[in-house]
């Protein structure tokens, strides 16, 4: 037991050492690294890297799905990771975002995509406030079930409301306007070595119906914006108020934090980002129906956040990638996807309870605990 803790701690120290080394690099090198990384993400769907690239399903489409999950996870992380509110009905906001786009750009009006998406965000945010205002006063576990119920109410409303297309859904959702700036070639590996294939290209930015790569680029851009927003807000009074509320609601209130207001804010922001993800989903799919918004999706979203490490934005990104990508990559085992996923969740919970990338606080706390353990052992043997 003690040896395993020791090794775990030392691995962590090494990794932090790596992080420090990166931080100590000159500013120019750091920027260069970021640029390289960004270009890599941008090119990813066209690199066709063997093994990583999904066979059987379009890799651009898969990456887009992964990107939506990342976006959802970032939004849900504000609610679950920062403010500590267990929201099991996140799919409700996702659906509201998607349906707002559907209703306003196809079913009942023909508004432009550029107008519709902001409206979708606002509608989702307002529904977050409407749901949160009465329910955020009840205790945590109840919030879980109330939100679960909310997700189900949204879905059932979609199924039963003719105005929203009932079970047939909404189709012919228009594509966003694009600008055709340049063509990006892809890489062909069929000869065993990478060859630039100038015939198979994606156009930046042309939103068509066969090539999903531009949608992925769009999602990537949105993620970058949301991430920036997340970083700015988290490192402010707002972020501290969320964390204090999560740690001890009464103490926070007695230190002058209007906890209810901040919980509601987290809830509304989470809802807005959920709505945005849903809007993107509707845009790419062009067709939505209630089956796209099953309750199970909420559970997957929560799993993405917790698997990665609730409270750490990079962790939840990793979690979202794991939850969204692996089932797609291993489609040949389609029958066993859910089974394996379930097993993976259980194993993760047992062997990596803080998530794949735990928040910095947990890492540091563990280091300190390890130090403490070493000290105690020293005393015991002395």
């Amino acid at each position, binding site marked *: 037991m003690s040896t395993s803790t020791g090794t775990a701690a030392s691995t962590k120290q090494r990794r932090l050492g790596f992080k420090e080394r990166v931080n100590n690099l000159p500013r120019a090198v750091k920027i260069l690294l970021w640029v390289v990384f960004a270009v890599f993400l941008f090119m990813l769907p066209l690199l066709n890297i063997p093994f990583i690239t999904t066979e059987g399903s379009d890799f651009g489409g898969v990456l887009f799905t992964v990107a939506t999950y990342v976006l959802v996870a970032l939004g849900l992380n504000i609610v679950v990771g920062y403010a500590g509110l267990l929201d099991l009905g996140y799919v409700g906001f996702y659906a509201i975002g998607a349906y707002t786009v559907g209703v306003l750009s196809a079913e009942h009006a023909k508004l432009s995509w550029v107008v519709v998406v902001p409206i979708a965000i606002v509608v989702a945010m307002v529904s977050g406030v409407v749901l949160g205002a009465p329910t955020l006063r009840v205790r945590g576990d109840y919030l879980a079930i109330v939100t679960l119920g909310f997700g189900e109410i949204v879905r059932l409303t979609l199924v039963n409301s003719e105005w929203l297309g009932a079970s047939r859904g909404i189709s012919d959702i228009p594509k966003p306007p694009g600008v055709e700036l340049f063509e990006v070639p892809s890489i062909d590996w069929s000869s065993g070595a990478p060859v630039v294939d100038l015939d198979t290209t994606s156009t930046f930015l042309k939103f068509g119906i066969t090539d999903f790569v531009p949608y992925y680029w769009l999602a990537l851009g949105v993620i970058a914006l949301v991430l920036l927003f997340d970083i700015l807000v988290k490192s*402010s009074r*707002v972020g501290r*108020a969320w*964390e*204090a509320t999560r740690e001890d609601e009464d103490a926070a209130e*007695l*230190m*002058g934090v209007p*906890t209810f207001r901040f919980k509601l804010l987290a809830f509304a922001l989470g809802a807005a980002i959920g709505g945005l993800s849903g809007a993107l989903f509707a845009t790419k799919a062009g067709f939505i129906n209630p089956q796209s918004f099953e309750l199970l999706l909420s559970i997957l979203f929560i799993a993405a956040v917790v698997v990665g490490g609730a409270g750490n934005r990079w962790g939840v990104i990793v979690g979202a990638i794991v939850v969204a990508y692996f089932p797609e990559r291993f489609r040949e085992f389609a029958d066993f996807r859910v089974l394996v996923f379930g097993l993976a969740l259980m194993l993760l919970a047992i062997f990596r309870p803080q998530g794949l990338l735990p928040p910095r606080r*947990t890492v540091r706390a563990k280091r300190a605990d390890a130090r403490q353990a070493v000290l105690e052992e020293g005393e015991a043997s002395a």
Partner: protein
Amino acid sequence: MPESTEPNRPDTSAESTAQTTPEATAEPTAAAAADDATTRPAVTPTTDATAPLADPADEVTEINPDVDITPDDIGVPEVAEGERLLEVDDVTLRFGGVVALNEVSFHINKGEILGLIGPNGAGKTTCFNVMTGVYQPTSGGIRYLGKPLGKRKKFQITKLGIARTFQNIRLFANMTALENVLVGVDAHHSTGIGAAMFRLPKHRREEAQGYARAMELLTFMGLDGKADELARNLPYGDQRRLEIARALATSPQLLCLDEPAAGFNPAEKAKLMELIRTIRDQGYTVLLIEHDMKLVMGVTDRIVVLEFGRKIAEGSPAEIRDNPAVIAAYLGVDEEDAS
């Protein structure tokens, strides 16, 4: 809930008895009785068992009394030195059939250190809870700065300038020491989502001001070297001090300390007395709940004694020491404890 109702207080553990006995026997009867009742609460009941215990080998952190920590102007009316800052006015609090506070009245003057003492279950913490808005009194009320507090919420009362610490430490365990204090400073800030998102001048100004004040407070407490440690990883004594720093960060007119010396050894208690005096000298009014008679007698200007939810005495430390009702109250506890 348990932190606020005194009957739920953890009973004297073997550890604390062992720790307090030698010192207690050397003290006057009343003090000894009170000291016996001193308990060492769990270090951080909100976290798990991983919080480090106070290590006797740890040296006591030295405070830096010269750092200027005078309260910021928080926009409440000034009260002249020696005038009434807060009045507890005939407060009665009932929980079902239990009367936790029974027509309790006393007041706190600006600039003084008032001790609130009494045997276990006397209603001291409950009194704090009424003053800070955790409970609404069944009848009677609190007047603060000459006006009734009414049904204000907890965070609104904090903004008006009443801050407190907790009997069982309740820090934000997974935040750093600095962040804990910053939350306190934030009480008077108004940076919202927009200001934070666009890094408006308001955000920058408030962050800079908040950081400066938080670091001053940490330096004052001798914790500046541990600003980036997680609260849960601090030694016990530092956690107690950090709680005081967090409360001071809200620039309170009235600072309520709920048994700040619980679990301290005599050396640490002496330092704490120093600390409380320094805090007063820097312009704060202090209300102190404490079991250690020596500490209370040594540091307070006036003392209010509660027993079974009633005020049984009020006066200077010397008067309280000789008050027969107080001695009886404590001897009564002594007999109970002994049986």
